[in-house]
């Protein structure tokens, strides 16, 4: 779309770089072969036919944790991994490797675009996207996935995210506007980019867990029996085993569309497909929004859903699942259900532990923590070392996860977590409740005795088109 066909862009002797989304997509991970493998193999076939020798594959991590080799193999398939990884031409982006980062330019707003040097110096960059939700893709892929911390801090901040309304509506998202400005700089001064975007259906759970994606009133006797068996056996297991089982689920997603070419044109087409699948018309806002927080979010593939991620998932992602107006009215109540254990994965989330103990005991206000604490975490040498050499998220990542919920935090009059560990919930600045009835009772202080209630059912993923 709005581009010459890929085979005509490939020339012998050129520098070709293929970037791809990391393990934060899809959720849950899709069964093999992954969409990215299909795209990249197709690109490599063309590149081989065109006589392109200099090919690098870069996992566009941004500040996410480095993927384990088995995750790379899952995403790319054994063939690509075995061919490129031993040669050192398949690697993961490092947002702290300033020797291998280069400044492309600056936007009118003064935002500096600094990206991976190999990407910047390539004759052609192909980006393989998995667009699971409307937030993904477009200029966001490259301008965050292969950008430096410095560059990301221009839009990953409380001010931008409080004005992002919503993450799923790029035309009303301050975050996306910033990214699109950077995209323009990239288009003018950066390498040629050929974007491939794909959308998935909502076939999230394989058998026997497929009942999870149905509405409860659609459950037949078999579904109810499976639910009971699953629920009882999981509760009898230790927490680690439960997590292991749930994270081992591979989704039978199928591709619903693929489009390729010039990034903005491709992305607009992708959005049409995503919205066609996700948009649900909703009449008016509600007083109380209830939601169940799932076991997985973009920042804990194979890891622990720690308390900060509970906040990020509830107020960041699920609250933002709207277009137009939020599902809950301003000053309304959000009720989430989640055990909210005070539990962290020290390998993946080392800075989250300190953030919980040090920052959240001081403030839950994104603006305050940004001013007072962010720099310390972002520049901490140990976190930097763990991010660059281990499998840890960047030191600043818990701040970004917190900012993600800044708009929801600002919008909601009260946030209640049902079933959570009470001291942990209080630390997040939320109100704990033992049961849903208690939660409604607590909420009545804010919304009165006869509120309207809307439940956001997850799974599957949907975007409320609130009129």
């Amino acid at each position, binding site marked *: 779309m709005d581009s010459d066909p890929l085979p005509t862009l490939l020339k012998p002797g050129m520098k070709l770089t293929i970037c791809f989304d990391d393990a934060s997509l899809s959720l849950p991970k899709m069964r*093999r*072969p992954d969409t990215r*493998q299909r795209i990249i193999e197709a690109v*490599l*076939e063309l590149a*081989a*036919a*065109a*006589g392109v*020798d200099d*090919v690098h594959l870069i996992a566009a991590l941004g500040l996410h944790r480095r993927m384990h080799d088995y995750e790379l193999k899952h995403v790319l*398939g*054994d*063939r*690509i991994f*075995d*061919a*490129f990884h*031993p040669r050192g031409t398949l690697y993961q982006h490092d947002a702290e490797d300033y020797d291998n980062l280069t400044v492309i330019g600056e936007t009118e707003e003064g935002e500096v675009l600094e990206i991976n040097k190999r990407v910047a110096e390539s004759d052609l960059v192909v980006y393989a996207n998995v667009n699971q939700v409307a937030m993904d893709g477009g200029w966001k892929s490259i301008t965050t996935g292969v950008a430096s911390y410095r560059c990301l801090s221009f839009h990953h901040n409380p001010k931008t995210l409080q004005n992002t309304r919503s993450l799923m509506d790029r035309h009303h998202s301050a975050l996306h506007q910033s990214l699109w400005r950077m995209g323009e700089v990239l288009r003018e001064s950066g390498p040629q980019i050929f974007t491939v975007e794909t959308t998935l259906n909502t076939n999230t759970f394989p058998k026997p867990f497929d009942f999870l994606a149905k509405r409860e009133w659609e459950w037949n006797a078999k579904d109810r029996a499976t639910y009971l068996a699953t629920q009882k056996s999981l509760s009898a297991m230790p927490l680690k085993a439960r997590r292991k089982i749930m994270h081992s689920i591979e989704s*039978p997603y*199928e591709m619903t569309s693929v489009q390729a070419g010039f990034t903005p044109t491709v992305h607009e087409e992708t959005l049409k497909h995503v919205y066609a699948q996700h948009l649900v018309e909703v009449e008016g806002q509600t007083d109380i929004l209830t939601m169940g927080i799932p076991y997985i979010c973009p920042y804990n593939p194979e890891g622990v859903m720690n308390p900060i991620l509970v906040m990020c998932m509830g107020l960041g992602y699920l609250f933002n699942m709207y277009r137009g107006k939020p599902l809950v009215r301003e000053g309304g109540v959000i009720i989430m259900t989640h055990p909210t254990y005070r539990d962290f994965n020290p390998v993946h989330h080392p800075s989250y532990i300190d953030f919980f103990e040090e920052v959240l005991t001081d403030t839950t206000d994104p603006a305050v923590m940004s001013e007072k604490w962010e720099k310390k975490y972002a520049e901490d040498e140990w976190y930097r070392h763990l991010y660059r050499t281990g499998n840890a998220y960047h030191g600043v990542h818990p701040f970004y996860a917190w900012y993600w919920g800044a708009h929801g935090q600002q919008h909601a009059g009260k946030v209640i977590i049902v079933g959570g560990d009470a001291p942990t919930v209080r630390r997040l600045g939320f109100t704990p409740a033992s049961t849903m009835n208690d939660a409604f009772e607590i909420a009545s202080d804010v919304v009165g005795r006869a509120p309207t209630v809307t439940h956001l059912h997850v799974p599957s993923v949907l975007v409320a088109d609130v009129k």
Partner: protein
Amino acid sequence: MANPYMKRAQKLAGNAESAVRQATTPLRNFGFPFRAPTVPRGVEVPPEASGLGAHYDTGWARRPLASSIRGVITEGPMRLAARILTNPEVTGVDRLASLQRLETPPPVIFAPTHHSHLDTGLMIRSIPLVWRRDLVVAAAADYFFNKKWKAVISALALNAVPIDREVTGRKSSDLLVGLVDKGSSLIIYPEGGRSPDGWGQEFKGGAAYLSSKTGAPVVPVFIDGTGSIFGKGMKRPKPGSTKVVFGAPMWAEDGESTRRFNARIEAEATVLGDEALTDYWSARSRAARGESPSLTGPEHTSWRRDWDLADRRKMGAAGKRRRAKRSWPDLG
């Protein structure tokens, strides 16, 4: 007057002698009806249609009872034997995922390279279950169906159907087309037989022809390592490692002749062979440059072919176990 007891004893002894004589007399001393009738002179008996070779009727082997027995054989002893003898590494099955996940996966014609009798067991073990359930193997009529016992074992254990290698038999091809049309998948060795010298052979057009006739896709498969485990001429197997690389499904293009389609299948198998020895990207790059190492080996025919083969095997799966056994010398 003779003693009655003596008479009785004599009679019994006579009967016993007669029975022993009968039992020890060779069958040939008996006449009709114990032997085939003699044919009057001047009568020319028409030759009886042979029930062996390409004429062997394997229909019985696809009935439910035989299929169940075969299921036990393939999933039990055959799988175990393949595991112990060949220690296979199977790659490329994900190339079949799109077909595999269809509600009704279509029948597929698997076209593997062929170096050993172990190939069939290895293939049956490696093929995804959706096709393994109803899988037919095209086996050489002159080898697997030339004796009754071999024919029975081949049909029962492998669901083999005879295919005539010497002449292009309409019967064989009609039978295979019919089976694929009914939904059976097929393993057919396009090389026509095991490699005589360890190098591959030129592909014959059987797989391409059947695909064109039935519309079923051909999946080229490269098997590496079985030749050095139990190649042609070896008396007993030497366990080792193998690699099975599945290619992407291929269909004949509009108006493409069987010959051209067959050439494409062979070219793809050649690239898979390169991929098995090197890696995906090197294989694809070399294929694009037209530099894929030939499956059939170098042109020369002397000892140098064997010499080159040894080098090639060192790169492959068969060589891995030997290399792994090497250890650093103990220098004290």
